[in-house]
């Protein structure tokens, strides 16, 4: 009988969010089931509730029809459920064999029987047809082989039933992906249940038999991977045709003179970037993660040190040594990572909105005017439609989208000239996304220069008047709105990688 793993009404809450909402479906052995969904759709959370890292608030798991419950990942592994994460969970200083049999090495007279460990490991390595030795130190192996060691570690358990891969190919080359797929197919042939989380459509088509689609914490449906089309999958993932959102936007038509000019900017992370931003313009920044987009902005506002180059605001040269300088000049940044760089988690909504207004809100002695703060908070909550029961609510109690709105409100209250948004819609739900898009257009109409860094191609194409593409710390191209296509941005952003 084939193995089976049933998810039954799995529900999981985090403060401010329902991360998983009544998820029910069945995975069967001998099949590769892909999880597909946007960031924050709940795929990783589901894996973590499966392997005992999180406890589901409601629902249960049935393995081969029997209810299973794991208090921690260790119990899950003992029961034959393994999750291979992006971050390696191996000990780099130990050998391949030691990693595979960590914690259950065979002993002889109370000492570890190294020879037997190595023999056992060699058998698995042979099974996997890998060119490594059991005695190799793991840190000397490539990332891909390190990942293989982790897989072998799971595989070496005789009772392995379920093996989950969380975005396994994120840091692998094409050849290495081939190798991984060969092993996944081997596991599949042995009847294991394989769950494969990925963003990459092409990969899913190649390796998966079925695709389970997730959206906003809910399970949507399962499709046959071979017959499902990409547009169909995207439509189910996003829940509606995003094309509509963009075409319904009321975009600013009047673009003014040059507001911000950057010439040959250099920092430790950026090699000579130049661009211009006009009043009323939305300037998109596209490119791969790590191409240097965020770092350009950080250097402009003085969060990182600018080592060379010039920045002009309204024609006057400026040099920001700290974000405080940029704020005084009217250049503000809504950072990419809301949790670690945006919100002040110990403060209320009111405190978060007012934190950059302390100077305006206080008198000569430094006393803060509570009435002014309350007014600014009320304004922000209204203008940006922040859903909170009260301004005194702790910001962490709001949903991601509403937290982000607080950060935008914080900056808009300072009346900036240049608003830099770094991945502003990452991890927020579709409804809030469209609110953000309307806001961005509104800001442009007010004459602000808006810089939009986004990894979502439709978003950057749908919103920007002009798009700058970065690759490997440099600008690799500039595309006007009319000429922008996903293919063009991708090729500008990845040319070197493709050539390799």
């Amino acid at each position, binding site marked *: 009988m084939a193995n089976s793993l049933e998810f039954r009404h799995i529900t999981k*809450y*985090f*403060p*401010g*969010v*329902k991360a998983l*909402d009544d998820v029910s479906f069945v995975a069967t052995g001998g099949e590769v089931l892909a999880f597909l969904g946007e960031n924050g759709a709940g795929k990783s959370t589901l894996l973590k509730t499966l392997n005992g890292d999180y406890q589901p*608030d409601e629902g249960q798991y049935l393995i081969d029809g029997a209810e299973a419950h794991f208090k921690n990942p260790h119990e899950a592994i003992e029961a034959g459920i393994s999750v291979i994460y992006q971050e390696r969970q191996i000990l780099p200083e130990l050998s391949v064999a030691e990693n595979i049999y960590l914690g259950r090495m065979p002993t002889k007279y109370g000492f570890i029987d190294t020879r037997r460990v190595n023999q056992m490991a060699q058998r698995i390595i042979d099974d996997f047809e890998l060119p490594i030795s059991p005695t190799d130190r793991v840190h000397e192996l490539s990332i891909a082989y390190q990942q293989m060691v982790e897989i072998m570690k799971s595989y070496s358990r005789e009772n392995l039933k379920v093996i989950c891969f969380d975005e396994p190919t994120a840091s692998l080359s094409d050849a290495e992906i081939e190798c991984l797929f060969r092993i996944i197919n081997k596991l599949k042939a042995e009847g294991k249940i394989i769950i494969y989380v990925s963003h990459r459509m092409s990969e899913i088509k190649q390796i998966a038999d079925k695709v389970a689609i997730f959206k906003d914490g809910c399970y949507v449906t399962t499709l046959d991977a071979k017959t499902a089309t990409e547009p169909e999958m995207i439509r189910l993932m996003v829940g509606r045709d995003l094309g509509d959102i963009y075409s319904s936007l009321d975009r600013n038509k009047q673009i003014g003179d040059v507001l911000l000019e950057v010439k040959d900017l250099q920092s430790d992370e950026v090699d000579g970037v130049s661009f211009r931003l006009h009043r009323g313009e939305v300037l998109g920044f596209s490119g791969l993660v790590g191409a240097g987009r965020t770092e350009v902005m950080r250097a402009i*506002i003085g*969060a990182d040190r600018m080592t060379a180059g010039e920045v002009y605001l309204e024609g006057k040269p400026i040099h920001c040594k*700290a*974000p*405080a300088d*940029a*704020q*005084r000049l009217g250049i503000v*940044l809504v*950072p990419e990572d809301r949790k*670690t*760089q*945006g*919100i*002040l*988690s*110990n*403060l209320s909504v009111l*405190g978060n909105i*007012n*934190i*950059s207004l*302390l*100077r305006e*809100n*206080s008198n000569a*002695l*430094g*006393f*803060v005017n*509570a009435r002014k703060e309350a007014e600014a908070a009320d304004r922000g909550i209204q203008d940006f439609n922040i859903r909170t029961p009260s301004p005194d609510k702790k910001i*962490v*109690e709001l949903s991601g989208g509403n937290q982000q709105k607080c950060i935008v409100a*914080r900056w808009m209250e300072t009346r900036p000239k240049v608003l830099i948004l770094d991945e502003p819609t990452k991890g927020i739900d579709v409804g809030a996304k469209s609110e953000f898009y309307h806001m961005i257009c509104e800001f442009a109409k007010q004459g602000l220069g808006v810089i939009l860094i986004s990894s979502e191609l439709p978003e950057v194409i749908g919103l920007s008047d002009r798009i700058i593409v970065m690759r490997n710390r440099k600008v690799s191209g500039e595309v006007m709105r009319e000429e922008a296509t996903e293919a063009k941005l991708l090729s500008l952003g990845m040319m070197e990688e493709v050539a390799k």
Partner: protein
Amino acid sequence: MKKLKVNGNLIVLTIALVIEIAAFSLLNHNFLTTVNMVNILIAASLVGLVAIGHTYLIIEGQNDLSPGSLVAFLGVLSSLLVSNGMNFGVTVLITMAAGVIVGLCNAFMVNRLKLEAFIATLVTQSVMRGFAYIICDGKSVGIMNQTFIWVGKARLLGLPFSVWLMIIAFIIGGVILAKTRFGRSVYAIGGNSQAARLAGMNPQRIVTISFVVMGLLCSIGGIVYVARMQSGQPSANVNLEFDAITAVILGGVSFAGGVGNMGGTVIGVLLIQTFNTGLNMVGIPNANFWQYVGKGGLLLIALTADYIRKVNTEKRLLAESKKAR
């Protein structure tokens, strides 16, 4: 418009203090007397001053282990200066300047050398204790200066100078923390220093100011302590910082930073000092030594309470998000 915020934690602490006083009063009938209460305040005054500095630093996510030896050093320094004929006013100024310099050194190590405050101030603790002994050849320095001695003896409305200083410092420190731009910045950088910097703050400057304030508080504390003892002793005030930190944590300041208020610290200081004095008065053998055990116990209770509060907040947040949908 807005009602006075009633802080649940503060109520619990006040009740704990009342119970503590009641318990010691039952055990010793001389405990609840004006003289004894004033004595408790006098004994609390130095810990109180230092705890004000710690309230700021710990909310910022920093710490300071140097006050004990710094107070001893500054005390010895001031008594040496007056013994060599220096005017009392000038002595106070020089002592304060020395406190500021040590504060700046702590800030330099934390901001520029990127040392953990715990480690950086451990360095200062050791170095300043060493200097306290070196400048006086290891011998305590008696004071003859009449102004200096007066400072230790003078009373207003029955309370000595040291207690008034503590009260005034608590009020000023509390108002600054709760009502001013600086106070808001303290909470902001304690919540998330990186985010606060991106929001236009200068976390390093705020940390520097706080260490300098601690230096000033230590110099004032050192002078008043010497005035009371009528001599500067290089071996004095060992573990002062631990009493102050315990009081601050007991008062509800989270060790992780970002949370707490001055009211809590006031009661934390009173709790600790009442406990110390009370234990001495109920006639337990080795009371001095039991104080250490007791303070450890108090700290454990405080940290456990902090943990339970945190877990409860998380539970409440989860319950609310469940209701919301």
